[in-house]
């Protein structure tokens, strides 16, 4: 598969995922719908990172620096929610 074909397939997958998310939002509310929609957005992000941002061909050091921002962001979420979800509210 040439890189060009690969990019076009990735784009088709991104658009398909977009419309799956669009459809889900109209039929499923609450926690399951929310989780699935955000997971699909995560898949879209991984597709862009891997192919459009060419991390599939990058060296280990570049991949590590690409992951760094997301690792720190996960600390922000984990620590913030470990506080807000555990607090006793009156």
């Amino acid at each position, binding site marked *: 598969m040439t890189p060009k074909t690969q990019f076009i397939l990735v784009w088709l997958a991104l658009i398909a995922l977009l419309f799956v998310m669009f459809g889900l939002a109209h039929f499923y509310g609450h926690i399951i719908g929310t989780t699935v929609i955000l997971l699909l957005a995560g898949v879209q*992000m991984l597709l862009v990172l891997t192919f459009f941002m060419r991390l599939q061909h990058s060296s280990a050091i570049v991949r590590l620096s690409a992951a*760094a*921002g997301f690792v720190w962001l996960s600390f922000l979420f984990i620590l913030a929610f470990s506080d807000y979800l555990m607090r006793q509210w009156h």
Partner: protein
Amino acid sequence: MPERESFVEEQFEDAPQQMEASELGMWTFLATEVLFFGGFFASYAIYRHFYSADFALGVRHTLLFFGTINSVLLLTSGLTMALAVQAADENRKKVIVPLLLVTIFLGLAFLVSKGFEYAADLSDKVLPVYNFDPSLPAHTELFFWFYWGMTALHAIHLLVGIGLLSVMTVMAWRGKFSAKYYNPLEIVGLYWAFVDIVWIFLYPLLYLIGRY
């Protein structure tokens, strides 16, 4: 000692090392951008957790039509950007400029569509403080602080991206890029894809989740 190519700066051994340094620098910058937008996303998540009903009401007041069209425009611009970088990598110089122009066009189309959406939002009275429908709950107004703040910050990034792409188009037009050297194009491509990723999460958070 082999002769150095003119585009290799003196601190680098060779072109691949210079390219890797450019990528590393750009990803480090993008990590700061992830945290910059991340603060917005984290505070959105916390407030959404506490005021989920009012936030869901806010989602039902955003304009799904514009949001979806804009997602398609931006994802497609991600494709044309990736194709432009790939064309440089394969030394197909003639297609770089057209692909960059299509990317710029898609970015501008996004901004125009966003402008129409903002105008419609104003007539729907969802601008906090200045023009907000008093019948909506206070925490729906909080949702719209996030809506305007996050989409405006994203739009500013897109505008910067269009500026960078214009510079890249001129450089490509003047034949500055080849398979051996296209570092500026590569890192602008990374920036553009990052702006794409921010929108990938803004779309479900501001337009989808809570609509049902």
